């Protein structure tokens, strides 16, 4: 499969996702939308495997790695600071500017997501450290 065919199919998947999103909103079916996203991502991944031309190489992997790490660092700090601010409002139980008590409670969910993100990061870190030979005993 050619690279442009892959991008065309990606566009087609995106259109289907938009259609499912509209349908889900109209029929109040959040699970359908969630499932559609997962299936869509899987479909995109499978199609990508069928591309003959080189889509990604070591340089693109390096760029993706660096961009992902920076994104994780920046978003981690932003989300965690926002979550802590929300937790302060939530614990005090008062209205603070446009933030109501109920809205601020969302901060706890956000904090949970941030911690989940850190846990997933540490798991992957450990996985790759093992994979690339870090750790173990010195042979000297």
């Amino acid at each position, binding site marked *: 499969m050619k690279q442009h065919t892959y991008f065309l199919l990606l566009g087609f998947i995106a259109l289907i996702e938009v259609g499912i999103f509209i349908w889900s909103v109209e029929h109040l079916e959040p699970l359908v939308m969630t499932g559609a996203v997962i299936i869509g991502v899987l479909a995109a991944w499978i199609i990508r495997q069928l591309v003959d031309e*080189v*889509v*990604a*190489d*070591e*340089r*693109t992997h*390096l760029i993706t790695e660096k961009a992902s790490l920076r994104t994780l660092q920046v978003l981690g700090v932003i989300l965690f600071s926002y979550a802590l601010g929300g937790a302060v409002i939530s614990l005090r139980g008062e209205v603070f500017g446009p933030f109501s008590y109920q809205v601020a409670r969302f901060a706890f969910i956000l904090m949970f997501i941030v911690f989940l993100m850190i846990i997933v990061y540490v798991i992957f870190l450990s996985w790759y450290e093992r994979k690339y030979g870090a750790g173990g005993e010195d042979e000297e």
Partner: protein
Amino acid sequence: MNENTGPGGRMKNKIKVFRAMNDLTQEDLARDVGVTRQTILAIEKGKYDPSLELAFRISSRFGVHIEEIFTYEEILADEKGSGDNP
């Protein structure tokens, strides 16, 4: 010849020269060694240092030893402080 600065030295390569000698385009070389054309361009410009494996694949494609295409030069301390980097 292109160059790329690292912590203690710089990588240089002669890919462009060897491509010209072998009458190859960046696209041809990229296809032969299994990378994108942008990667070959980045290596030639000295913006990206290839992995050891890719460096070997490139030199193998031209049928020469790796050190004939890729060289590493140490930067002396006084050269480092001469305003090469911001």
